[in-house]
């Protein structure tokens, strides 16, 4: 649907487009059309989108649908291991995957701040396309608004996603059973520390990269192998500790985990030690816990470990009846304590 080939090969935009977003780009006129063609059409093209209709008209899959939405605000928008575009696709795809859905379609709504570099927008759009291709989802509808300079933070992205559920399980906290195994798909804390390091200009000996990754393929493989999944949860803000607390509370069961089993990379450990943060509460963007019957644990681990982002998958604990709604951590020196929710954000400490 590109009516005109881009002339500047490096930026891929028609010449008359300015290099920064203007308020007029959101005005619905010719500039907006040029923006859509210059920045988006090249990256997002499929039969649903190319109708350029007010809504995408999609075939209805049989079975149950999963539907979710999330809004992405991250600073900096480009960080080691990813960017806001990648995050906005993986994040929503991962939310769909947590109910065991096969992700199908995404919408994207962008709020751009006047003055935002077009080159960055193109980079983000390209990154979204690559991420969508990797997950096998299509971006079928979208919207763009421009706000005045100073009223936004460069770019905010909302994505919503639809997926189809092709199994009959109820993958949710209420399915937890006593004795279930709790699996974790990899090491903790890399996204949060990567963002904090990039945002605050902290220099560590090695660059810590975000773990930002899609989880749907792993989940679908588990389902294809008929693993009886009881609950899945991706570990985003608040980290492992918050996710397990939410599950335990919703399920009215206890989750007991072994601190020694939880993988944390040396460089993340080092950064956390320095800043006074606990990696169990630091954000991730490519990690999940899978809770399933103990007899399925070793088979599930084997399947998870076939995937790049599941290579370090490990059994970290189990579900018990009591103390209901609590997470209990057994630490390295054999002492147990409750792993509580945090009141707010973790604050880097003084010394």
């Amino acid at each position, binding site marked *: 649907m590109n009516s005109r080939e881009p002339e500047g090969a490096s930026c891929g935009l028609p010449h008359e487009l300015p290099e920064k977003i203007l308020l007029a780009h959101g005005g619905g006129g010719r500039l907006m059309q040029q923006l859509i063609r210059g920045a988006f059409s090249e990256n997002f093209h499929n039969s649903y989108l190319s109708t350029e209709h007010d809504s995408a008209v999609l075939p209805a899959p049989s079975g149950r649908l999963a539907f979710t939405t999330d809004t992405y605000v991250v600073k900096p928008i480009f960080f080691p291991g990813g960017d806001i575009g990648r995050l906005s696709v993986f994040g929503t795809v991962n939310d769909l995957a947590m109910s065991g859905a096969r992700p199908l379609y995404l919408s994207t709504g962008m709020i751009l701040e006047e003055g935002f570099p077009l080159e960055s927008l193109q980079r983000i759009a390209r990154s979204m396309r690559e991420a969508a291709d990797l997950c096998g989802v299509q971006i079928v509808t979208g919207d763009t608004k421009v706000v005045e300079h100073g009223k936004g933070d460069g770019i905010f992205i909302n994505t919503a996603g639809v997926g189809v559920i092709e199994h009959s399980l109820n993958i949710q906290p209420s399915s937890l059973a006593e004795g279930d195994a709790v699996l974790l798909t990899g090491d903790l804390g890399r996204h949060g520390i990567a963002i904090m390091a990039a945002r605050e*200009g902290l220099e560590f000996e090695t660059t810590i990269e975000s773990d930002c990754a899609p989880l749907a393929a792993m989940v679908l493989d588990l389902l294809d192998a008929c693993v009886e999944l009881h609950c899945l949860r991706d570990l985003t803000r608040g980290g492992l500790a918050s996710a397990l607390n939410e599950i335990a509370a919703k399920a009215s069961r206890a989750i007991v985990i072994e601190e020694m089993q939880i993988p944390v990379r*040396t460089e993340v*450990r080092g950064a956390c030690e320095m800043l006074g943060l606990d990696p169990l509460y630091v954000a991730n963007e490519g990690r999940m816990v899978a809770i399933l019957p103990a007899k399925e644990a070793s088979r599930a681990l084997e399947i998870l470990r076939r995937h790049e982002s599941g290579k370090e998958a490990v059994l970290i604990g189990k579900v018990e009846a009591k*103390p209901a709604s609590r997470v209990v951590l057994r630490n*390295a*020196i054999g002492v*147990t304590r409750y792993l509580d929710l945090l009141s707010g954000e973790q604050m*880097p*400490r*003084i010394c």
Partner: protein
Amino acid sequence: MLRYIDEYRDPELALGYAREIAAVTTRHWKIMEACGGQTHSIVKYGIDRLLPTGITLVHGPGCPVCVTPISLIDSAIELAARPEVTFCTFGDMLRVPGSRKDLMTVKAEGGDVRVVYSPLDALRLAENLPHREVVFFAVGFETTAPANAMAAYQARRKKIRNFSLLVSQVLVPPALEAVLSSPLHEINGFLAPGHACTISGYEDYEALARKFRVPLVVTGFEPGDILHGLLMCILQLESGRAEVENQYTRSVQREGNREARAMLAEVFEIAPRVWRGLGKIEASGLRLSAAYSELDAEKRFGLSPESAEEKSACISGLILQGIRKPVECPEFGKGCRPERPLGATMVSSEGACSAYYRYRRLEATDELPRT
């Protein structure tokens, strides 16, 4: 650095010390850990739960956020709200309540408040923002003092005129002396703070050991360190000795860090300080010396800290002296929580109340399974 940490988290090492402590303890002993980092470690790892019933740990005044007086927090808030000021602080000072609000609120109201990770970052900011007055909130014990001194030293050398420090720098030994001088105290021995002693050395602690006849063991922060320090302290108590011993030998030397001490002597001088919860203690802190007084934010902005009253329900003064435990406070977890703290011991991650809230809050209502 991490090799050391892993080594001192070794469960066998820690449990070995715990067994030894149980074997040598014949009486009741009350031991205070002086540093907030040690308090945090003890509560987080449950180190107190590995000890025989005769050993009681009490938490000392060693959290820099907690002991910063409320009047100085009010000064910080006043400065941060000024339109020409960019106010730089470590993250955990943001939520410390002043008498009316906190720095986080000032930020939300439009004040230019920035979290930095080093005073040198604040200095760099001053160089990059020549039309702003950049103020750094220099809070802390001996541990933060050398970097803060370095920032002042460089600001003076580079003639950076839009940089100043709001100083609340305190010293550990005078605070321990104040605790020991209180008629209410029942403390038999101390774990002295390993990181502060890395800078200052421990000659001042030897004077305390002689004057008050108490053992002090300079101790690290990992479970293995703390249990080892406790064992050394208990062995002294059991044999009637009162000396300074050094558990944290991989970091601390008797004379401390000479370069850091020289930098402190260049920039700061000993001064009386008001401690939140303990009151005014003579010669218990540092202020910028005469040669550096132009970098003193209180002088530059004509601040005269008014004495501000603590919220009456807060017992942080008793907590910081080890006289009460956080869970003994009627407001703990009720009127006072990290999201709405009545006092500073609930704010900082190194504050005793905050550590108990984070790691032990649920135990008040639910019995913890011991596996």
